[in-house]
């Protein structure tokens, strides 16, 4: 077994994701099967391979250098706040953060 029920509980905690008892077990079994499949990557010796973290190589680079940080007003704050579940313009309101 690659992943235990406790692992799934811990990961769901990290991801701030409520899972029901039945979801916990379903996902554990399915992810276990997927991880078993993924372990085939261990057949490959990658000791001397550089990880590929992004696709664009130097000769295709879009932004070789950082651009100037210029403030451009977009004037959509009111519209953005309208999408919030509990807006208190100009703020987003949320439950108290101090206590965990």
């Amino acid at each position, binding site marked *: 077994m690659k992943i235990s029920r406790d692992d799934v509980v811990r990961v769901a905690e990290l991801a*701030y994701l409520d899972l029901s008892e039945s979801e916990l077990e379903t996902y554990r079994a399915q992810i276990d099967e*997927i991880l078993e499949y993924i372990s085939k990557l261990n057949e490959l010796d990658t000791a001397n391979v550089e*990880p590929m973290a992004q696709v*664009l190589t130097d000769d295709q680079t879009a932004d070789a250098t950082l651009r100037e940080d210029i403030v451009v007003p*977009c004037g*959509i704050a009111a519209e953005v706040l309208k999408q919030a*579940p*509990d807006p208190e313009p100009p703020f987003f309101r949320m439950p108290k953060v101090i206590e965990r």
Partner: protein
Amino acid sequence: MTTTWTIDGVREGLAAKKISARELTADFYQRIETRHAELNAYLALSPERAYAQADQIDALVAAGKPLPALAGVPVAIKDVLSTRGITTTCGSKILEHYVPPYDASAVSRLEEAGAVILGKTNCDEFAMGSSNENSAYGPVKNPVAPDRVPGGSSGGSAAVVAAGLAVAALGTDTGGSIRQPGALCGIPAMMGSYGRVSRYGLIAFASSLDRIGPFATNVKDVATILQTIAGRDPNDSTSTTAPVPTYTDEISKPVKGLRIGIPRDYFAEGLDSGVRDKIEKGIELLKTLGCEPVDIRMPHTDYAIATYYIIATAEASSNLARYDGVRYGLRVDDPTLLGMYRKTRGAGFGAEVKRRIVLGTYVLSAGYYDAYYLKGQKVRALIAQDFRDAFTKVDAIVTPTSPVPAFKLGERTSDPLEMYLADIYTVTGSLAGVPGISVPCGKIGGKLPVGLQLFGPAFGESRILQLAHAFEQAGGASI
């Protein structure tokens, strides 16, 4: 029988005043109304915006002014692309009532070129899926066989074009989500190179893989749409400055003498015999056009699915952290902040999205990062190297798009791994960042479409568009 409109057809119709842009728009809304209950392909319609745009085009016609490239062309947009003032759900309950305050760059470029945006198309939740059955708003039906899936995740975009409910559509492709539904619905569908099209306003799934691209009824229209949306955008630092060729001129260049690589690793077990038969006939057709098939090896193909599902889920777990019930979307109340996060995310996300968040968080978590995520990035480098090696020997690579034709609704939903394995021929090119197109290659039993996939080297879109166009003109769709 409804007319099949093309971009050229719309232009000629408008210029000759045979039809107005408003009449054409109304005709498409009529078609949508007729087929909606059956196909479930649109999630939102935007008639106000569409008619306003149509009227502007009609004013240009009336004034005898030149028409932009996509004047009056009715298009549909996958619901993961932001559209100002039009609900954008990503096929998820967590964004059920979300109305973006701005347009994705690809959308505004289409509109600036005169296109009429009809509405938003259904898709797998956050573009995660290969059958469109992961939409929170119900699956899309395949217009060629309504008991079957249209493919995914851009199933709605493929279905509306195949059914004549839009002349073209935008989709997104992370592991095959444009090419595979294009194949299953029997229309050409393309993703450009990573960096070719700005992703500003695309709601992110996996940022090192996500790409935006077109569906249309013919390769020339695919080329026109790609050309319209391609090119540098200061709002997306991953969009490149590489010049955008005039694809519509490039497509008619001769294909005689081009070397096409046939990777035998793509014709291994798991390939449906009906699909294999059509692809072999497709390769024969390319030979008659003067292309030279070359046997090539892509030795890391067998590791692509495992690599893809590490990288895609890791990036998804990070990207989807933003849905926290604070700034937009669903909130499920709880007196504590963390309780609110957990409940909101638990209630708002569907099963496939939760599964991928759990897997992605796991492969990134302390103690597992090296074994999974770092390993995946290393194997990704090997897969990309397979492509670079191949393109020293050949001009393009030919494969099936999907190992199977459209399958029945519900047939594969119980086993996520089995569903993932069917992405084998598309994820390789996604990982490598190269462009790919799926072009119709006959129908099994005269009914179920097969797609032939062409990969080109990075920024070699012209080459695969040429091949796809020549293949289409030579009757590839009715092989």
